């Protein structure tokens, strides 16, 4: 099945810093989503982005489907951005959404 690799696994930053999270996938995909898991365990939809670029406030994402990667950018980080960020994909061959292992982001005040 499709493999989803996220990097880095952990990231510690000072408040106000910018960050880039990466998601590589091993096969062509129908869909790609970025989620933020908050301290209560909820999976919050950030972006649905099978290709192209989207922006929502301080967050933006880019997926280059032909090169099988996606990037999530967080600018001017705040402590509330802390948590785990997951990339999840639907491959063309499977009827399931596969998650990466996530990037754990710690924003220090």
């Amino acid at each position, binding site marked *: 099945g499709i493999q989803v690799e996220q990097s880095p696994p952990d990231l510690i930053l000072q408040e106000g810093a910018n960050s880039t999270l990466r998601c590589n996938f091993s096969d062509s995909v*129908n*869909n790609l*989503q970025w*989620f933020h898991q908050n301290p*209560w*365990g*909820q*999976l919050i*939809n950030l972006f*649905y982005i099978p290709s192209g670029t989207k922006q929502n406030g301080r967050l933006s994402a880019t997926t280059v489907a032909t090169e099988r990667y996606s990037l999530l950018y967080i600018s001017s980080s705040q402590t509330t951005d802390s948590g785990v960020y*997951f990339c*999840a994909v639907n491959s063309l061959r*499977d*009827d*399931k*959404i*596969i*998650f*990466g*292992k*996530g990037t754990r982001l710690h924003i220090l005040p």
Partner: protein
Amino acid sequence: EPEVTQTPSHQVTQMGQEVILRCVPISNHLYFYWYRQILGQKVEFLVSFYNNEISEKSEIFDDQFSVERPDGSNFTLKIRSTKLEDSAMYFCASSSMNTEAFFGQGTRLTVV
């Protein structure tokens, strides 16, 4: 905004007992999923459901697990005889064809 709702939010059960986790997907969605996340680990696929039948399942989804869509709105996951290692957060999700999936807030299952 439509959302996926799961009940209960937290369930504690004794080893060997049956549990049913409930989900109400978004009303016009066609694809339904269950996932689990053991504390501190990745979100793992259990099963997908489309057109009133299982379309895919993982190795985790063994004979102890079953899913059902008993009416037009609910989607349930049953664990027949719970084990300690079934303790996890269970997420339900739904989507339309080739669109983003929406996840419920999860049910935290604790088996004691």
